[in-house]
């Protein structure tokens, strides 16, 4: 389930950014392309080393709407907290 804050954030985005959501908004099985990463340098660097960089395709593996997520990125299954996931902005693959 997409939660309310995420819905509101999506609504506030300008036209060009439509389809861009936080990673935690993807449903299991859905794919997206990373468009931007936010956060401190340390977190960015860890994300990059685990495979998250702009342009990479990610597949949501597990997302129950609460608790940590599992994402497939560069053939690696990565578990991450919702807080960390909210710093990764993705474009839904089907919304182009």
């Amino acid at each position, binding site marked *: 389930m997409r939660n309310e804050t995420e819905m509101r954030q999506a609504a506030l985005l300008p036209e060009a950014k439509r389809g861009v959501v936080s990673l935690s908004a993807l449903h299991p099985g859905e794919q997206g392309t990373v468009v931007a*990463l936010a956060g401190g*340098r*340390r*977190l*960015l*660097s*860890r*994300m*990059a*080393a*685990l*495979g998250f*960089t*702009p*342009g*990479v395709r990610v597949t949501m*593996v*597990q997302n*129950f709407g*609460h*608790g*940590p997520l*599992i994402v497939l990125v*560069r*053939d*690696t*299954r*990565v*578990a*991450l*907290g919702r*807080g*960390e996931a909210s710093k990764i902005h993705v474009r839904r693959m089907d919304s182009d």
Partner: protein
Amino acid sequence: MTEKIHTVALAGQPNVGKSTLFNLLTGLNQHVGNWPGKTVERKEGTFTYNGRIYRLVDLPGTYSLTANSVEEVIARDFIIKERPDVVIVVADAATLERNLYLVAELLPLPAPVILALNMMDVAQQEGFRIEPEVLEAALGVRVVPMVATKNVGVHELLAAIDEVAHDMDDYAPKRPEVRADHQDVLAQIETLIEGYVPEPYPQDWVALKLLEGDREITQLMQEHLPEERWQSVYDILRQHDDAMVAVASGRYEWIGRMIRAAVTRPKVGQIGLTERLDRWATHPLWGLILLASILGLTFWLTYTIGAPLQELLDTYVVGNLAELARIRLAGGAPWLSALIVDGIIGGVGAVLTFLPILVIFFAVMGTLEDMGYMARAAYVMDGFMHLMGLHGKSFLPLFLGFGCNVPAVLGTRVIESRRARLLTIMLAPLIPCTARMAVVAFLAPAFFGSAATLVSWGLILLALVVLALSGVLINKTVFRGQRAAFIMELPLYHLPNWRTIGMLVWQRSLAFLKKAGTLILLVSVMVWALSMLPGGEIETSFLARIGRLMEPVGRLMGFDWRLMVALLTSFIAKENSIATLGVLFGADQEAGLAETLAATFSAPTALAFLVVQMLFIPCVATVAVIRQETGSWRWTLFSLGFLLLVSWVAGVGLFWLAHLVGL
């Protein structure tokens, strides 16, 4: 003339089978220590090939070489400062794309690289087709396909090491370049720092790390550049503070070209073994049930194998040894006999009898880690651990504490963030270990009769509540609520490698035995001496005097000096409390002791004593490993002070509460 011994460094990301390869190459010719001044494990060994001796240094497993963690700094400093003759990068063939990221970071460093493409069998199972020769041509470095667990490719790797170590002329790697849109900036930085980069850092690498915003290198150059130049560099860096992501993307673009040439990917939709297993193992309900079953099994193993073995050790090895010493020393000075029998064998022996339980816990931890399950356990427990400002990875070490606090503290090595690791170590002694439970199991029936079970469960619950509250408190105050980001790899499952696990159990046990022979021995003898000097009787000893001195602290809970002394001697091993009470109350038989105690102390005092016993400072073995793993006396003393305070507050609180309800 003897030939120079060549140094080979072993690098790789976590979960790629690096330890397995290290053990395979060195066998028993290895030595485990710590990196100088750090609490990170350092393994070093030797192997012989082609009549030449090689020194193999295992670098910490890291995903990248940016100064994010101590491990990353250690790995890159070793390569830059010690200049190994060869660096072997172990990569998991099934996650090659991400693994090549470390290769992209290693190639600009001044040491020739060999890529050991491990777990080729798993990659094949997952549907990847990899052509090592094509990859070799694309990278310009030797690529050796391997299955380290099955001994496949080891000979080829050794031959490659031997070749590269002795003939550098052919070494011409194709190094990754920074993305086109940042090449100008990089060139500008390099011009500015030219001539100012201290030895032995490579200049182009320093420029790249500056652009990436690497904290350590930024500080280094700020110190070495004249102020004006630093200002110019700083201005450029500030304009490009997003460069880190660009540099990382550049590396993946380079990797992408390598991969496209050498790897055929599985068809989309192919479901691997890992995905099928994870549907259960990471499910919020089934995952918890699976974890609970595994933990239950671990306890079952401990009680059916560990506990009887512990008893056997106690009776036959420690008991007989004490008897033998007593007979042998019968003719000599009585104090010598007492020192050896009661002080050394009694103290260290009690600690040593825990070895079977430790071995079981080390083996379970090692197996779960090696199979790749540990990350799943961390994942399903993450929500719960959040409450204490920790994340899932702290759960298993804490769980191990129920067996013994020693493996709990050692088990925190799986936690990357120092802050989370320290917090977990601070909380570990609050887990009631088997020895504490043994004391409770003896005293609770003596004091509370039929309500003993209820009291015992209540005490465990209390300890866990205190643990959770302490977690929240320490996190909020000492660590100011910071929390390490929860982002971790869920590695592919594979069959456990018994050699790797066996080696781990052996090394951990050996380290514990060494501790028992040094620090634990020293403290045991000291406490024993305090309990015997000056008159040879515990009732008139220094320890008793200390107990009397501290009586006022205990009086708030109705304790007398004898209970204080019992607590003090529990520092050697928790069960000592009972033995001490036995001596102080002059009861030879434990049954007699139970009645005497029940007659002497009121129910609130008895309850308070059990509570304090439960939350008191841990035994000397645990303190020794806390010191070892934190690498700091300050944290060790903080832990002791904190536990003293917590146990006293809880004891006094429950004593008065019991009074109020009229127990």
